[in-house]
Structure formats: structure tokens, C-alpha cells
């Protein structure tokens, strides 16, 4: 799975999650708002009902007043007068209540104004009737009643109340519808929101499951490829080891087989040398006998070394010179072959890992070099060093070679300063051996590690083996080494070695 796809998937999940939350919030807010609105509508419905009931109440009170008035007119009984009074007193407050209830509706206000006028007129008529009875003018009252002067008012009351009722009925129907709609909307919103949330949750779960499946798959693949990698590494290591062994065997055999003819060359050169002695002795003798045959007997020519002269002498010297070159070349070649042999032998040596007090080891190495140190007027400083588990002999050779090099290639006339430092990093110990010597040209940094190669002024004895040997050792110990240096500015050799002996190290082979 590419990282882009992974990123996209993560983005999708975040988006889905956000969308889910957003939907939830919208649904909640919508539901709250809608419920609120539904309550408002319900309240209005109730209000309408209240108005209607108040209207009925009012009309009832008017009827009661009217009945009481009529009863009083007929009977003149005082309890009817009281009843009339109570009813008449209740009418206007009831009307006020109605007015208060309908104040929000201009249509009703207008209706109410009309109603109120009619009511007041009716009340006045009642009052007049009652007054006539009080003045014992019952007949006039009855006449008045019969004339129906109050019919207009009654009519108005009836009509107006019908209008009010109709209006309220309309409002009631409308408000009920509104309330219903709001409720339906609220539940619709809730259902839609819940569905959306559930759907989003479903998609999220699907995505999460898919990504976890992908992750499992990737993990499996990783495990597989890890295994593969290990196998591959093992195979490669085995191959390399084999190749290395082969190179070592090759070097070993070649150096041996080279040495064999060398023995011959050297042997017969020496034989030639002896022959040369014989030949030139004979030449001298012959020359002498030729030139001075008569006086030969008395001189003890047999015992004394015959002396060559002129061209013969030159010839003899040329011969010697040639043989000298051959012999010195053979000697050099022998040294080189021995060096290769030693290197391959070192390469085959088995390591013996032990815990090593590195500082102590280097101090011991330095002690064996005390003579060179004092001769070079050098000072060797050893800082605290990390201790490691490694092969003692190998470490002695590594540090011995490096310190020896540092002493060997100091600047003449400048007191040497050699510093050995150490630190640890990620399971490795890093050692630095720095000097203030003549330094190494950066172009030679690789070359100095090659076998038989040297750099700089060749004024010191050496075969060009030390650093090659050191690097081979460091590698076999599972470490690396490098150099930082500039001409005339000293050198720093850095060696990185594992602190603990790696179990897979190449000490197991022969």
C-alpha cells in the first residue's frame, strides 16, 4: 500500500468522523428548535381553547345576568337581584380577561370591541330593567322587554361571539396543523439524522475494518519479507564468507607457489655467484699465465687470489652488480610474499573474545613503544575509553599499528602530540587516534589502506602492510575504520567496534 493511499484513507476517516459529528450536532439543534416550536404551537392551541372557553364563560355570565334580570322582573324576589348583581359584576371582568387573551390578534380585538359595546349595552338594559322593577314599574319593563329594544345588542353579541369563535376555530385548525407539521418535521429530522449517523458509523466501521485488514496484510507481508531478508542476508553472508575464504586460500596458495620458484631463483643465483668466482679466478689465472708465463712458478698463484685487470675487472664488477640487483629484488619479493602469507594467516586466526579494559590495553601497548616515544619526543595522552568485549591480540595489533604509525610519521622538529579518545554510540565504541604529524593528502586516504601502498614522503621503513592489516582486523571484529586528515595538519584515525561481541561474528569459522 502506498503512503498516498494511506494518507487518503486517513483523510477519509477524519472526514467521515467530522461529517458524523456535524450531522449529530445539526440533528440535535434541529430537534431542539423544532421541539421548541412545537411547544409554542401547542401553547397557541391551548391559548385558542382558553379564548373559546373564556368566551363561553362570558356568554354564560351574560345569560345568567339576563335570566336573573328576567326572573327578577317576573318575581321581584331579592335573591334574583343578588344573583343578577353577581352575574353582572362577573361579566365585565370576564370580558376584560377575554380582551387580555385576544389582545395579540387585531381581528379579535376589533371583534371584541364590538362585543364589548354590545355587552355594555345589554348590561345597561339589564340595569334599566332592574331599576324599573325597583321603582315598581314592572309593566314598563315587561313592555321594554317585549319591545325587544335589546334585540340588536343580543344579536350583536351572538354574531360577534360566533365571529370570535369562528376566528378562534380557524386559528385552532391552523395552529393544530402547524403543531402537527412541526412535530412531523421534528421526528423526520431526528429520523433522518439518526439514519445519517448510523450510515456514517457503518461506513466508518467498514473503513476501519478494511484498513485493519490492510494493516494485518501488510504486517504479514512485512514478517514474510523480514524472514526473506534474513534468509537472503544469511545466504549473502555465507556467499561472502565463502568468497573471502576462497580469496584467502587463493592468496595462500599463490604466495606459496610464488615462493617455490623464488627458492630456485635465489638458489641458482647464489650458485651463479659461486660460479662467477670460479670463472673469474680462472680468467685471472689464464691472463696471468699468458702475460707472464716464465716467472709464474715462483709465485704461489694457487693460493693467492688472482687479481683481475682492465676489461676483465669491469666485466666482473658488472656481473656482481647484476647479481646484486637480482638478489635484492628476490629479497624484496620474499618480504612481500611473507607479508601476504602473514595477512592470510591472520585472516584465518580464530578470535577469542574477552572483556577488555581498553585504556589499560593501550597503556600497555604504549609502554612497549617507550623507546620510540622518547626518540620522537612525543607525548601520548589517553583519555577515558569505553571498555569492550573483543579479541585482545587483535586490539593490541590495531592500536599498536596506529600508534606506531602516528609516532613514525610525525613532523620533524615538532614535538609529537598523540591523543587517544573514545566514546560510545548505539552499541558501538568509537575510538579516535589523532596526531599532529605530517598528515595525509585526501587523495591518498583510500590508498593508504591498500596492501603494499604508502603515501607521502617515503623516508621511513615499511612495507605498506600495517593499515591494510588493521583494517582487515577491524572488519573481522565487526567494526569499521576511517581516516580524517590533511597534509601538514595531522591525522585522526577513527575505529568503530561493537561493544559486545556480536554472536554472528566471523570467529566461528576455521
Amino acid at each position, binding site marked *: 500500500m502506498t503512503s498516498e493511499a494511506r494518507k487518503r484513507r486517513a483523510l477519509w476517516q477524519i472526514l467521515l468522523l467530522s461529517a458524523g459529528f456535524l450531522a449529530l450536532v445539526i440533528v440535535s439543534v434541529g430537534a431542539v428548535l423544532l421541539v421548541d416550536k412545537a411547544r409554542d404551537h401547542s401553547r397557541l392551541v391551548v391559548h385558542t381553547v382558553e379564548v373559546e372557553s373564556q368566551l363561553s364563560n362570558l356568554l354564560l355570565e351574560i345569560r345568567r345576568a339576563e335570566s336573573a334580570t328576567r326572573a327578577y322582573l317576573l318575581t321581584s324576589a331579592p335573591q334574583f337581584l343578588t344573583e343578577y348583581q353577581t352575574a353582572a359584576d362577573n361579566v365585565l371582568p370576564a370580558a376584560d380577561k377575554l380582551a387580555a387573551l385576544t389582545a395579540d390578534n387585531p381581528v379579535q380585538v376589533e371583534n371584541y370591541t364590538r362585543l364589548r359595546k354590545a355587552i355594555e349595552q345589554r348590561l345597561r338594559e339589564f340595569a334599566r330593567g332592574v331599576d324599573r322593577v325597583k321603582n315598581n314599574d314592572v309593566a314598563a319593563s315587561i313592555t321594554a322587554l317585549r319591545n325587544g329594544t335589546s334585540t340588536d345588542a343580543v344579536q350583536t353579541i351572538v354574531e360577534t361571539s360566533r365571529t370570535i369563535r369562528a376566528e378562534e376555530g380557524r386559528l385552532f385548525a391552523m395552529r393544530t396543523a402547524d403543531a402537527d407539521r412541526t412535530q412531523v418535521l421534528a421526528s423526520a429530522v431526528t429520523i433522518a439524522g439518526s439514519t445519517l449517523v448510523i450510515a456514517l458509523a457503518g461506513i466508518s466501521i467498514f473503513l476501519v475494518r478494511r484498513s485493519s485488514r490492510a494493516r494485518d496484510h501488510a504486517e504479514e507481508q512485512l514478517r514474510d519479507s523480514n524472514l526473506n531478508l534474513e534468509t537472503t542476508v544469511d545466504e549473502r553472508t555465507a556467499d561472502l564468507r565463502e568468497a573471502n575464504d576462497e580469496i584467502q586460500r587463493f592468496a595462500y596458495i599463490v604466495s*606459496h607457489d610464488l615462493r617455490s620458484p623464488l*627458492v630456485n631463483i635465489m638458489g*641458482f643465483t647464489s*650458485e651463479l655467484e659461486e660460479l662467477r668466482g670460479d670463472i673469474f679466478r680462472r680468467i685471472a689465472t689464464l691472463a696471468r699465465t699468458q702475460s707472464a708465463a716464465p716467472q709464474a712458478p715462483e709465485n704461489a698463484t694457487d693460493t693467492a687470489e688472482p687479481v683481475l685487470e682492465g676489461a676483465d675487472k669491469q666485466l666482473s664488477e658488472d656481473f656482481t652488480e647484476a647479481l646484486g640487483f637480482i638478489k635484492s629484488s628476490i629479497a624484496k619479493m620474499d618480504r612481500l610474499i611473507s607479508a601476504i602469507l602473514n595477512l592470510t594467516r591472520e585472516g584465518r586466526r580464530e578470535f577469542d573474545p574477552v572483556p577488555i579494559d581498553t585504556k589499560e590495553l593501550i597503556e600497555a601497548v604504549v609502554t612497549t613503544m617507550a623507546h620510540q616515544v622518547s626518540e620522537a619526543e612525543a607525548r601520548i595522552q589517553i583519555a577515558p575509553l569505553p571498555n569492550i568485549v573483543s579479541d585482545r591480540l587483535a586490539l593490541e595489533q590495531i592500536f599498536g599499528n596506529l600508534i606506531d604509525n602516528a609516532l613514525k610519521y610525525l613532523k620533524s622538529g615538532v614535538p609529537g602530540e598523540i591523543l587517544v579518545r573514545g566514546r560510545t554510540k548505539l552499541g558501538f565504541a568509537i575510538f579516535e587516534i589523532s596526531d599532529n604529524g605530517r598528515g595525509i593528502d585526501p587523495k591518498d586516504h583510500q590508498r593508504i589502506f591498500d596492501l603494499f601502498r604508502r603515501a607521502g614522503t617515503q623516508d621511513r621503513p615499511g612495507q605498506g602492510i600495517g593499515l591494510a592489516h588493521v583494517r582487515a582486523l577491524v572488519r573481522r571484529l565487526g567494526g569499521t575504520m576511517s581516516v580524517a586528515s590533511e597534509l601538514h595538519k595531522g591525522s585522526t584515525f577513527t575505529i568503530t567496534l561493537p561493544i559486545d561481541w556480536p554472536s554472528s561474528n566471523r570467529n566461528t569459522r576455521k
Partner: protein
Amino acid sequence: MSNPVTIIMIEDDEGHARLIERNIRRSGVNNEIIPFTNGTAALDYLFGKDGTGLVHKGNALLILLDLNLPDASGIDILKRVKENGYLKTTPVVVLTTTDDSHEIKRCYELGCNVYITKPVNYESFANAIRQLGLFFSVIQVPPAAT
């Protein structure tokens, strides 16, 4: 000695053989030297046609052996000689270019009597051979056993 010692020289390099012979002679040893330049011929001679080594019963031999032979390993020859009932008392001088300590140890373990590394330095070489000649002249070589 009633039965003079025969020196068997197994050396593939004729130059080396010549040098060895010369230096042995210079040290005053005049025993017969039979040179072989490969292992097969030497083994044929040593063990005879029947391969038992019976042919040399009663003969006093001394073997000069090079380890690096073209057709056989000197170590194998050494092993076979030392395992053979008739030849095992025969002194074997390993004379070779190999100076590997493992190899030297191995040869002594197998019963080699002297191990000499051929030095490139001719003086040492000649010296070693002459010493060997001296050694030849003083050692008692038993006849091949019964």
C-alpha cells in the same frame, strides 16, 4: 652399515631437487639419491607393484618429502608411509616452502621426523641442507621393518 641408506627425494620442482642434491653432496653425503618429481611415481616405488611396501623389506630408506606436489598431497604420502607396516620406521624429512604452524604440527602428528622450511635465503637453505646431511650421517636408519 651393511645396508647403505637410500635417499628417496620426492620433489616436483627440479630446480629445488638439484639444489638439495648439490648441497647434500657438498656436506659429504654420498648415499644414493633416487629423485621423484611426482607423488604417484614415488608411491609406486615405495609400495611396490602389490602396494604393500614388501619390496623394501630389509632396505634402509630415508624420505625427503615436499608437501606441494602436483598430483598428490605430501601429507597423504606421509600418512601412507607411516601407516605401512614395512615403511613406518623410515625417517621422513619434510622439506617444503610451507611454514604454516598448523601444517607443521599436522606433519609431526602424522609421524614426520624432521620438518624443514625451505628458506628463500640461499645461505640458510644451503645451511639447512648441509645440517641435514650431517644429520643423515649420524642417524641410524633402521632397515624397513619385518
